[in-house]
């Protein structure tokens, strides 16, 4: 029992130290920590545009977070969402000249994104499933490869007809995801993301495949005993989470940018890991977690825009907030356990 309250206490101390570090840094920059804190929350939570921007960003983060959640359930560590997202957007874009300019064409583009992401994830899947190679290395390496191939494509075969800027020609308006709400950038990708949440939740918690993922993740020996091949599961789930990443890429392209360009989803893959883990790999919590992270980024973005503090403080805050969140969840978990134990004892 003492151990538990000890951990809860340490969590408080750790969080306090982190907060002190941040406050110190802000004071050193000659700013007022309180107004900085208010500044973060203000635009994200209390302005329409700030909130909408967060919703917009949470669309890809939700889809990516779902892919991470699926893979991590089987203890398959897909660090390659960034590359799979690029692969999906490239395939979607490559299909653009070939498809009819209507809703069906748009559907084909999105499907192309899914296929592209699945294929890129599938390479890691084959390396893991067929050859037993570590998926962490495979996916990290494939990220670098995808980044460079994109860099080449937008300067080579897929560059705009004008051949000035490294980017593709724009998509026809008919192939863009429709805007859901007048005068916002919120596009139909929101519905796709929510549909994905439902589909992945069903897959993870109700389907046989989801059950198999959980078995492999919990106990590979038991999986083999049950006739589930952990390597097949690993290979297939990498493909599946790649498919989700590819979908996210296609949604970003058809929903926001309308063309292919470098750097349109910077670091989303890493953020998605945090999104999924904070949601405890529960698909239904992923959109909540994704929105939370997006609000955080929107708030930090405001801070960066105001120029109140030097930019690196934004990074410090980003890390510190995650640390404080971790400490908070540790605190809550141990308080809860302790409470339980006490009532049981009494």
């Amino acid at each position, binding site marked *: 029992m003492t151990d538990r309250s000890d951990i809860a206490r340490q969590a408080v101390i750790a969080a306090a130290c982190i907060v002190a570090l941040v406050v110190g840094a802000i004071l050193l920059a000659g700013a007022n920590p309180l107004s900085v804190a208010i500044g973060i929350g203000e635009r994200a939570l209390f302005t329409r545009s700030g909130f909408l921007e967060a919703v917009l960003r949470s669309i890809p983060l939700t889809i990516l977070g779902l892919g991470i959640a699926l893979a991590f359930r089987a203890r398959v560590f897909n660090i390659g969402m960034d590359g799979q997202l690029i692969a999906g957007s490239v395939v979607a874009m490559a299909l653009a000249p070939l498809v009819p300019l209507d809703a069906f064409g748009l559907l084909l583009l999105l499907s192309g994104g899914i296929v592209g992401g699945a294929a890129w994830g599938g390479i890691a899947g084959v*390396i893991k499933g067929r050859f037993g190679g*570590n998926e962490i290395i495979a996916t990290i*390496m494939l990220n670098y490869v995808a980044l460079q191939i994109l860099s080449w494509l937008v300067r080579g075969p897929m560059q705009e007809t004008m051949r000035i800027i490294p980017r593709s020609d724009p998509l026809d308006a008919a192939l863009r995801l429709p805007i859901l709400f007048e005068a916002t950038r919120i596009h139909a990708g929101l519905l796709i993301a929510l549909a994905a949440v439902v589909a992945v939740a069903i897959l993870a918690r109700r389907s046989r495949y989801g059950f198999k993922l959980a078995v492999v993740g919990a106990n590979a020996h038991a999986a083999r005993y049950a006739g589930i091949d952990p390597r097949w599961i690993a290979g297939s789930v990498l493909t599946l989470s790649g498919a989700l990443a590819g979908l996210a890429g296609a949604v970003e392209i058809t929903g926001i940018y309308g063309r292919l360009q470098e750097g349109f989803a910077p670091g989303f893959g890493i953020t998605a890991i945090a999104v999924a883990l904070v949601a405890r790999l529960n698909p239904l919590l992923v959109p909540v977690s994704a929105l939370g992270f997006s609000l955080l980024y929107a708030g930090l973005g405001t801070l960066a825009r105001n120029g109140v503090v030097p930019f690196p403080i934004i*990074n410090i805050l980003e890390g510190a907030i995650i640390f404080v969140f971790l*400490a908070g969840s540790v605190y809550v978990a141990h308080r809860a356990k302790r409470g339980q134990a006490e009532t049981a004892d009494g």
Partner: protein
Amino acid sequence: MDEALFLSGLLAAGIRLATPIALAAIGETISQRAGVINVGIEGIMLVGAFVAVLVTVSSGSPWAGLAAAILSGAAMGAIHAVFTVRLKAEQIVSGIALLFLGIGLSGYGFRLTLAQGGTAVQVPGFRELDLFGLAGVPIVGPILFGQHALIYLAVIGAALLAFMLSSTRLGLMIKAAGDYPQALDAAGGAVDRVRFLCVMASGAFAAAGGAFLSTAQLWGFVENMTAGRGFLAISCVVFARWNPLGAIVAALGFGIADALQIRMQAGYPGVPYQFFVIAPYVVAIVSLALASRGSRMPAALGTAFSPQR
């Protein structure tokens, strides 16, 4: 002779490119052997790089800079250890937070200090050694005797760690902490203390890698100068199957492949340069597919240890 020059230049560049990755990978190996994954080493490398430059400039001695970097890295490692070992929080999330914290602290520190003047400061950094006066010997001279002191220290450090893991009781405790912490606990060993120290050590090594980048390979700090090397280091750990000497070899493989693609680029201007840049990664992926049998990660990697009491 041209070939010889090419070769010695290639190897020297490969070694330089490999060293920061190798140092970080050695540290990560120790941490992972003890059961803690640290995806934040990129952030620690940045802090190390910055602190090394700062202290080198103010003290005039790159060695003082290195020492300060190592201390700062250990402190960064301690933050990760507090959260993962003491509080038993999710290791990957803590690592991501550490990454951002490191980016921010190094960048902010830089702006508060060295970047204030607006002009470049002179960094009295490390210079290549000339061991036994043999650095001038063709080909082997610069490779074997003309490297930076930190490179020799990295090799010695990895060898010592390999020896420590295989032949000391501390090494047994580290391996037990990563493979089957219950056994270490039952044998009266403090699992958490072992892990805590290993995570701090991993921070120290990562920071040394950053210090190499900013005071030996280059003389100066720029924000985000590690450019993904921390993640390459994690790959090297897995590639080397959690063996510190192997981590050096894997990093060297990356370094030499990178040095080679750099040299190929200018020779084939018709080929898009991106294909050269990805070559080392493609080689890594292919060799991963071909040589992965029997690779096993520490069984308790990534999971916190809570004794049943």
